[in-house]
């Protein structure tokens, strides 16, 4: 019974994720309308806001691309259901695909066959952090293909330093034009190996829009990039304007002296996320 309850909450969390955006995202989009001085970007932003209203009030996926089912989990090592969590999530994804419904988005790269239930090899995608304790937090972040296609990894020459990082980010966001459905959120992963840089870039997107990195120097870099990117003038959906990104999020890891991996993972304006908190006894609660 308890187990079913978690599965039900997960289906609910996926439904709530794909039928709206996070509250901070919606606030930021609303505020953006007034910062635009011409009609074209206002038309795009107002359509986005009206679309979010329709999605949320009718419990309808806001975008037809309901994304790759992606989960970031912080689980206590004493969480009693740790071993069965992947299976529970997989079952919830299958059910959500039918019940919400979601678009089937899991394709075998070798045979080209669509599994039709959003599950398959390594899918749902789950990132694990095992921590102390006996509870678990599951972040649900269905990731759309349009913005994911604009991800980038640069193995930067370390000598270019943070100035080089900023150049790479500005050049890439300029090259993205309207393709990642702006206003986007830019996740930036610095250091680590190639794998970690991209994982951190995606993980950075979990931090709510408007919330700065706790370390002042990193927070300052986020703000500088946010301000400079928005002066590029790409604008909402690439029609020109003041709001190209809603936020920039940086996470970092120590790097090899010879390497400076720079991972960039953009999130489209449809920043769909929910969180499930699970008690040791299996009681689960969904928050946004």
């Amino acid at each position: 019974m308890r187990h079913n309850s978690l599965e039900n909450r997960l289906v609910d969390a996926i439904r709530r994720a794909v039928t709206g955006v996070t509250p901070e995202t919606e606030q930021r989009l609303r505020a953006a309308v007034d910062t635009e001085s011409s009609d074209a970007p206002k038309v795009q932003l107002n359509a986005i806001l009206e679309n979010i209203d329709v999605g949320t009030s009718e419990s309808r996926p806001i975008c037809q691309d309901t994304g790759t089912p992606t989960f970031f989990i912080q689980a206590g090592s004493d969480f009693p259901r740790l071993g069965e969590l992947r299976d529970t999530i997989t079952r919830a994804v299958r059910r959500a695909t039918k019940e919400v419904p979601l678009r089937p988005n899991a394709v075998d790269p070798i045979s080209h066959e669509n599994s039709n239930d959003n599950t398959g090899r390594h899918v749902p995608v789950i990132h694990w952090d095992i921590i102390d304790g006996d509870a678990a937090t599951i972040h649900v972040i269905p990731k759309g293909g349009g913005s994911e296609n604009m991800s980038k990894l640069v193995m930067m020459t370390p000598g270019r330093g943070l100035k080089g990082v900023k150049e790479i980010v500005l050049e890439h966001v300029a090259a993205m034009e309207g393709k990642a459905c702006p206003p986007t959120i830019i996740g930036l992963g610095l250091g680590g190996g190639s794998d970690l840089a991209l994982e951190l870039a995606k993980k950075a997107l979990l931090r709510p829009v408007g919330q700065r990195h706790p370390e002042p120097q990193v927070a300052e870099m986020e703000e500088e990039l946010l301000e400079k990117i928005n002066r590029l003038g790409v604008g909402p959906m690439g029609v020109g304007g003041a709001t190209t990104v809603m936020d920039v999020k940086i996470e970092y890891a120590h790097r090899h002296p010879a390497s400076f991996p720079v991972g960039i993972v953009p999130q489209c304006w449809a920043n769909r996320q929910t969180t499930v908190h699970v008690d040791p006894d299996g009681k689960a609660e969904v928050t946004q």
Partner: protein
Amino acid sequence: MKVFETPIDPEEVGKLRVGDAFYITGIIFTARDAAHEKLLGLDDSQVPFDPSKYAMFHCGPAIHKVDGEWQVVSAGPTTSIRMEIFEDEFIERFGTRVIIGKGGMGDRTLKALEKHGAVYAQYTGGAGALMANAIEAVEDVYFLDELGIPEAFWMFRVNKAGPFLVTMDSSGNSIHADVAKKVQKNLEQLKKEL
């Protein structure tokens, strides 16, 4: 704001300029890459509908059958540039004058718009719920078995669908090309400030 009823008067389409926004009531048909290729490969007698009468929408909808009836779940635009290799020929042969998608198209399409008095309009990427809400009925679907759900021609009866923002017009203007130029200029300046 302007609401056009299909079939849209070609003279009205010719008057549209970049920056204009409009809505559509009537019939919109979806067409992605495979649909373009399919129709262009047919003889005139085999084409199942008249593409000159309706607006074309670059879209692969999320759609399912409920009690035997098609219901649209969400229907936002797909990236239009993939259709660049077909669009000028499509406009030339079938006379479609209103093309809706996202992200803009290239020079070949822009030239075809000029030649045929047509426009390209952007529908907001990801705004699939809003469009689904404006779709009153699925009137028909063509080549569903052959092309599959996302690629088939879906004929949607819509009521005030939009807003569609004209980003490429029949006078050779393209917001996409203009913004790309401005962004490159701004980028050079911003890099100097680092």
